[in-house]
């Protein structure tokens, strides 16, 4: 990873730990998930519904592209001024009676929260839906410490009661249908029993009754935050159900865990994000509940407010100019809802708390791509580009995926040994710390099958090297293509190939290979390139075949048209000049077109 000096000499890069690892390589994990037809049907239905809703509400905003630009610019500013903004934020939170804690990684954050809960002498907490606490594995950690946490977001509750894992950022139980939810509730919610039906309203009412008691009885709440305003010290949570607001206002103590990238410089910046976020995530024009709080206020809400600012790899991401825009993410999950890989493989296939396209770039960056647990995620994409098209803060996910693939190849080629060693030791240290806290045996840091074997070139290395040699010369291409008739001769009797060995066997697992052509275009053109007149005559028919002198147009009506257009020079030249001029200015016309018109294509 290219590391930029952030002005902190001697600082070791702190990589992230917690629920960020994909323990089984993506292709294998995806293969088993693909067999779950119920899950695929649920996700297919849900993502198509949200996608359509999003398309409608985004389509009605004439300034959507400007909003995206603004969102991206504000987040870029946050990255550029992060140390200064964090200090300003801390000062403002403190001035308003909040207490700020700093956590370098998951283990530190978990320890801070545990100590705060213990200090209150309670063994139960309620929680607002939060990605940061999923990321650090707070619930599991607290459970190991004898503290029970109750998720209050309906979908998180379904996942928690079902002893399951979230599979979507916004809709964690997207893989469950109402029958499955009914089953979980009747098993885990006291008093529901057999009377529970699968009607959404009935299920919601059961959850409401269950949660009301928790809200009233519990004195400590833990939340995440969507935004933290540096200039005022204000925190913001946006949600749909109102359960979050209950947690933020009823308990005596509120503990918020917030990733350091969630800052916004100014209160006015919320104007942009409160438009971008609900339209991108739930397909709503406005989210139902927006809670904001600044420190503590006597007689209103929690008496004590703690803010845990979490790094967990974010500084490392910020240090990489080619990958840092992943920190712009506002967790809307629009990229998940349009991603065909996510749609088929589902969220669990990504292993980490962050699934889908954003997860494929964020998880490996937080842990470092050299942490081998995450090095198959950057390949979990066909690079179709839909994620970039819908991203409200314009994270160029496909380009970052390519960048991370490059980093992965360099790591495997031994060009990133120092970073790799550090990332691997982060994994081991985090596991040991977690094991010590919960009293369990530490898992081995390396999946035995995934320990790097040696620096012997892989099949992929050989393929890429060989292809590179052939494809970087017209002469060598021509020579290689002389073998086409051999392939044709060999495959023709079978109508193509159905099996290939080794790595490329992945191709023939799903597809046949056709019988190759008898010769390449290049080699054919050498003999036939000059036959323009014959080609035109053949295509235009016998009228055009009438003997004509050189330079005379064929005598069909089409030929008349051609003659007529022979003078297109001026107009076409203007088009070409315009585009060539733009492209030499550094940014090609095409890329600027793609970003500005991307949405209209959706």
């Amino acid at each position, binding site marked *: 990873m290219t590391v930029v000096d952030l002005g902190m000499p001697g600082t070791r890069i702190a990589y992230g730990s917690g629920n960020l690892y994909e323990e089984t390589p993506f292709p294998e994990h995806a293969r088993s998930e693909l067999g779950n037809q119920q899950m695929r049907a649920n996700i297919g239905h849900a993502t198509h519904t949200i996608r359509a809703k999003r398309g409608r509400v985004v389509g009605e905003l004439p300034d959507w592209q400007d909003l995206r630009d603004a969102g991206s610019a504000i987040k870029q500013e946050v990255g550029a001024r992060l140390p200064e903004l964090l200090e300003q934020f801390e000062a403002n939170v403190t001035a308003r009676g909040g207490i700020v804690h700093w956590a370098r990684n998951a283990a530190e954050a978990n320890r801070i929260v545990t100590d705060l809960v213990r200090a209150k002498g309670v063994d139960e907490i309620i929680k607002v839906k939060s990605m940061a606490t999923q990321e650090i594995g707070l619930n599991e950690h607290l459970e190991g410490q004898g503290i029970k946490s109750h998720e209050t977001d309906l979908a998180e509750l379904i996942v928690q009661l079902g002893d399951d894992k979230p599979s979507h950022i916004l809709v964690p139980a997207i893989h469950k249908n109402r029958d499955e939810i009914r089953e979980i509730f009747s098993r885990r919610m006291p008093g529901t029993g057999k009377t529970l039906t699968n009607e959404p309203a009935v299920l919601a009412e059961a959850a409401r009754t269950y949660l009301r008691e928790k809200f009233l009885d519990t004195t400590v709440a833990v939340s995440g935050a969507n935004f933290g305003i540096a200039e005022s010290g204000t925190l913001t949570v946006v949600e749909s159900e109102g359960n979050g607001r209950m947690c933020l206002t009823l308990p005596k103590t509120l503990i918020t865990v917030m990733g350091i990238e969630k800052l916004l410089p100014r209160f006015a910046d919320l104007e942009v994000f409160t438009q971008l976020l609900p339209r991108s995530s739930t397909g709503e024009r406005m989210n139902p509940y927006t809670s904001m709080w600044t420190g503590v206020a006597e007689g209103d809400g929690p008496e004590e407010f703690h803010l845990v600012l979490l790094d967990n790899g974010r500084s490392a991401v910020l240090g990489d100019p080619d990958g840092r825009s992943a920190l712009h993410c506002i967790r809307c999950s629009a990229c998940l809802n349009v991603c065909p890989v996510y749609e088929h493989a589902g969220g669990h296939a990504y292993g980490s708390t962050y699934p889908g396209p954003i997860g494929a770039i964020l998880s490996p960056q937080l842990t470092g791509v050299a942490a081998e647990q995450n090095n198959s995620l950057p390949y979990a994409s066909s690079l179709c580009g839909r994620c970039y098209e819908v991203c409200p803060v314009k994270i160029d996910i496909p380009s970052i995926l390519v960048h991370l693939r490059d980093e992965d190849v360099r790591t495997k080629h031994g060009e990133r040994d120092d970073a790799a060693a550090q990332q691997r030791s982060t994994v081991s240290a985090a596991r040991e710390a977690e094991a010590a806290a919960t009293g369990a045996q530490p898992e081995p840091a390396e999946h035995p099958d995934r320990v790097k074997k040696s620096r012997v070139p892989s099949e992929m290395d050989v393929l890429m090297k060989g292809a590179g040699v052939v494809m970087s010369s017209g002469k060598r291409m021509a020579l290689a293509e002389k073998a086409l008739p051999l392939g044709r001769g060999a495959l023709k009797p079978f109508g193509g190939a*159905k099996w290939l060995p080794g790595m490329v066997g992945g191709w023939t697992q799903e597809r046949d290979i056709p019988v190759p052509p008898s010769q390449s275009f290049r080699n054919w053109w050498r003999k036939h390139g000059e036959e323009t007149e014959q080609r035109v005559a053949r295509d*235009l028919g016998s009228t055009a075949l009438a003997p004509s002198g050189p330079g005379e147009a064929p005598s069909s009506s089409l030929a008349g048209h051609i003659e007529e257009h022979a003078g297109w020079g001026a107009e076409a030249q203007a088009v070409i000049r315009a585009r060539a001029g733009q492209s*030499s200015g550094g940014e090609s016309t095409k890329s600027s077109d793609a970003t500005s018109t991307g949405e209209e294509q959706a």
Partner: protein
Amino acid sequence: MKIAIFATCIVDAMYPKVALATVRILERLGHDVVFPAGQGCCSQMHVNSGYIDEALPVVRNHVEAFTAVDYDVAVAPSGSCVASLGHQQPMVARKCGDEGLARQAEEVAGRTYELSELLVDVLGVTDAEKQLGSYFPHRITYHPSCHGLRLLGLGDRPTTLLSSVEDLELVELPDAQECCGFGGTFSFKNPDVSGAMVDAKIKNIESTGTGLCAGGDSSCQLHMNGAARRRGSEVRTVHLAEILASTRANPLELDQIADLSIPRVHATITPSSAAGPGGAQAASSAGGAR
């Protein structure tokens, strides 16, 4: 106008008839087509697999090949490869510390068009029947491959051209904007997900009742065709260039689509180049096709 054709590696080696179709369309409009002999690949396979260092010589070769010859514009029958020139080649050169090459790559990319882009934007073709004599009396559907759609923003250019072909009926493809699942080395690194994606694509094509899907990227078509065959589906694909090149006098027949070779009628010696027996044969077969 002098137009350089960038055949792209996959078309050059596996679908030469698509490059020929591109040439035929341009020549019919009265342009000179040149084939820069040094050309190889756009480097996309290397870049998308993360092999940036190995991509550098491929990029350099492309830039050299397309600066060594004189032409007004270049064209490629592939949205993906054209997008790679502008989006990836300068990035590769910069990552490898060659700013001069990056600028040259930008210059070449600025002059290189995807086929439908060139026809509509530069050559002013919007009515394929009237302006190209295109004739294809079949019902088809159309899959807009991802990079043409999203990186180049081709929009309705390809479908404008297709729907103006004489006797062609274009049926809309459900979920047309979904990726077919090819994705270069993704197709064999994640074969199961890729397979699930192409399943969905094939089902959508089948639902149109056309059995034939046009597109602008041969690599996606290689994947879709191969997957259809493997699944015993009747679905076949055909390149946009082949449909536009097809005329009443020299029509593309459905039974020719499966063979990837350059059609015999173009491969044999032609009538006016010689009075030999081969010439007579070609002339009669062209007439016969009519």
